[in-house]
């Protein structure tokens, strides 16, 4: 098991703008870290720097406590799974899995056995002699995993490994990756733009935007105490609602703050409820399994509510949205940083 430390990593591509603006992360041995952020924010670049595929312009990388910035990729004890799998097209599944072992000088019989063992874990045994082009997307993905696993590297890097799979397969592979992590005990750094994957897989999530690290914390922490409005809006589906304090009836006196209300913290009522509420009208509804997502146009702008479907009967056009400011997150409207709740709301 290998820990990784990044200190103030900065990177710009030749004649391009700066892509990473001083990213620091301390990743513990055996930790499953998910790096998440919108596309183009520098996630892949960060991963490739750790792999040694890009050379760092500034900052330090330590792998297993040793400075590693000067090491070539093949000297870093790191395995990587690429977004497009990058399987060797001219090699069979067996050869793909065993290639890294061969390059590291493992005897033939031993690497055969190891490849077969890995293939069995990934349910690839029937396909060992096939070429990648004769495999389905999901099988290719497994071969890519197998290639990384065979080497028993201390660190696994995964760059959006599931983004090319259809949804059902993605969910299944997600579970498998989590199980794999438990089995291997290796450190995993997993890049994705999908917040669901981040929340479900990570021990800790690193949220990035525009080459800046926004927050590095556990999924619970990120969801319940996001560092700023970007983190709050990026994680959670459907996204959080922002309402300026000035617009809410019970915080009129508060200036410069914004309340973040998660859709599941809101309630749709057909009649005006007891507590605090906002009047609005239903624009559209989306069914999503147990929940009904209701989009409303209200006096404070558009709000999205996630309701338990059972509790709702037919909705009239005119509705009230009940909220509880104790559940709201508060942000500084200009800087976007999360702040303490204003006194007025706490007193309610």
């Amino acid at each position, binding site marked *: 098991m290998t820990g990784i430390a990044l200190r103030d990593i900065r990177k710009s591509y030749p004649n391009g703008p700066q892509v990473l603006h001083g990213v620091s992360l301390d990743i513990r041995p055996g930790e499953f870290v998910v790096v998440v952020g919108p596309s183009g924010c520098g996630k892949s670049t960060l991963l490739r720097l750790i*792999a*040694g*595929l890009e050379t760092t312009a500034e900052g330090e990388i330590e792998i297993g406590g040793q400075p590693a910035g000067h090491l*070539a*990729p*093949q000297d870093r004890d*790191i*395995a*990587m799974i*690429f977004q*497009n*799998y*990058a*399987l*060797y*097209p*001219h090699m069979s599944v067996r050869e793909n899995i065993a*290639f*890294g072992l061969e*390059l*590291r000088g493992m005897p033939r019989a031993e690497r055969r056995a190891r490849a077969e063992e890995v293939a069995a874990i990934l349910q690839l045994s029937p396909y060992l002699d096939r*070429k*990648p*082009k*004769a*495999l389905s*997307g999901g099988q*290719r993905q497994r071969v890519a995993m197998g*290639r990384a696993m065979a*080497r028993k590297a201390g660190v696994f890097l995964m760059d959006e490994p599931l983004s*090319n799979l259809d949804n059902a397969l993605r969910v299944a592979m997600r579970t498998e990756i989590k199980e794999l992590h438990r089995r291997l005990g290796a450190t995993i750094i997993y890049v994705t733009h999908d917040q669901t994957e981040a929340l479900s897989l990570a021990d800790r999530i690193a949220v990035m935007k525009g080459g800046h690290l926004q927050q590095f914390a556990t999924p619970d922490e990120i969801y319940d105490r996001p560092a700023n409005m970007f983190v709050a809006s990026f994680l959670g589906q459907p996204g959080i609602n922002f309402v300026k304090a000035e617009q809410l009836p019970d915080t009129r006196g508060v200036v410069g703050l914004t309340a973040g209300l998660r859709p599941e913290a809101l309630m749709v009522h057909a009649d005006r409820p007891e507590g605090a509420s906002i009047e609005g009208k239903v624009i559209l509804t989306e069914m999503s399994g147990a929940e009904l997502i209701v989009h409303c146009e209200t006096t404070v702008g558009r709000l999205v509510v996630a309701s338990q479907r059972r509790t709702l009967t037919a909705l009239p056009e005119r509705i009230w949205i009940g909220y509880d400011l104790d559940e709201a997150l508060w942000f500084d409207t200009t800087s976007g940083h999360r702040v303490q709740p204003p006194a007025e709301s706490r007193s309610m």
Partner: protein
Amino acid sequence: MKRERLTAFAALAVGLIFLSPVLYTIWMSFQTSDAYYTGRLEFTFDNYATALGQYDFGRYLLNSVLVSGAVTLVSLALSVMAAFAFARFTFPGGNLLFGAVVATLMIPSHISLIPNYLTLAKLGMLDSYAGLILPAISNGFAAFFLRQYIRGIPKALDEAAYMDGATPLKVLWRVIVPIARPAILSMGLFLFITEWNSYIWPLVAVGESELYTLQVGLARLYRINPGEGFLDWPLIMAASTLTLLPVLLGFVLVERHLVRGITMGAVK
């Protein structure tokens, strides 16, 4: 259906037209000289025996195979490595160097004829295999063509191999070369045929008949032909066929490897 058959028929007809000189050459090479000039039909293998025995075409054939083979292997090796370097690495002066390689494509080979001759004369390499081979082994076109092909191979494959523990040479040999095999074989065939058909340089660089290549030997055949004023065409055609066959054979051998689509399934 009817249209398809028509197309096939037309294609066949055009093919035959293109092939007819070759077929006529082969046909003529089996006739006796007398029969050819008198219009009778009389078949024989004597022309081949004469070409190989009396006129030493066996030796020329060997020379051509040696020289063309060596040129092909060495220039393929050089241009594959150059192409890999140009396609995958950025290094100081890299673009300039690549520009220079491309610029060599614009220099007609006849311009370098005299400088090459003088250089090799100074080195004492005229009248040797080295003198035949060396000037032909740097091929800017091969380097350029293969670089373009290698650039089309996803770089992620190199990177995957580096992560697997490969050195750059291993990446070239175990990943790039197998994937680029169709292009490399096509280029090899092209280089071989070009060198096989090369005439001017072997003519200039070599004076001793033991070092003649087929093309030079064939040209000499016109001059040393016995008989006053008329040429032994069937003999010349037999020699021509000997010159032609290895290339045809090589093409047939390599042709089935010239398939595309080997990168399919590498990256989705």
